């Protein structure tokens, strides 16, 4: 998982090794990279190229995703592309 990429919230919770990540949305607190109010798995999160790690908070637990460098060219994951086509979900840019 690399920076300079657009991900879905579900992809980031999965990378953070959250147990049963798909069940966490809309039931309690989900914050990714400081963004509050994430209630849908296809919420899109864009990680800028300088991002090294991402904090993921689910309920009262904190997880961390450490990124393996950065994509040279801005990338949209396949899941994020699907989300963009199907639901036009909320998009939250993350600038760090």
């Amino acid at each position, binding site marked *: 998982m690399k920076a300079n990429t657009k991900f879905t919230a579900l992809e980031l919770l999965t990378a953070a090794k959250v147990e049963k990540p798909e069940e966490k949305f809309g*039931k309690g607190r989900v914050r990714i990279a400081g963004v509050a109010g994430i209630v849908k798995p296809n919420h899109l999160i864009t990680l800028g190229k300088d991002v090294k790690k991402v904090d993921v908070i689910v309920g009262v*637990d904190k997880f961390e995703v450490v990124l393996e460098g950065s994509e040279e060219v801005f990338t949209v994951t396949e899941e994020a592309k699907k989300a963009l086509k199907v639901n036009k979900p909320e998009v939250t840019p993350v600038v760090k």
Partner: protein
Amino acid sequence: MQTHTVKFQVSLSNGETFFEGKGQFKEVAGEKSPFQKLIDYLVDHKVEITSLALYTDEGRKFNLPHAGKNPKFSPQIKGDFILPIDFNLFRYVEQDMKATGGKVTDSKTVNLFTVAEAIYSDYKVQLWVDENDHNNCRVLILGS
């Protein structure tokens, strides 16, 4: 550093209550914002927010719906209300700027609101209070 006239008051699932501007949640230049410090505190102590309100130094208080089992507002005890799943807080700033030769020569803040959010599974309820006119208070509902 901006000093806010509308600040948060928060109650937690462990019974604690904190006020922005007091104790460990003071605004200090170069540090995280008081609300960011609160988020760190929630994670460190494994607690959740049960209520979030805004208050002013002259004693006004603006409440969002309560998420705990024992709300102080009795109609919320009697009614079958949906409880928020999370809360958030941010500041909204609008500025007028004058630019000459590509450089900003003057700027003036025209709107500054403190905004508290109650987050539900399908929408958010936002409580907006004007930092410069505490009588100017609005509620907005946003789909998510």
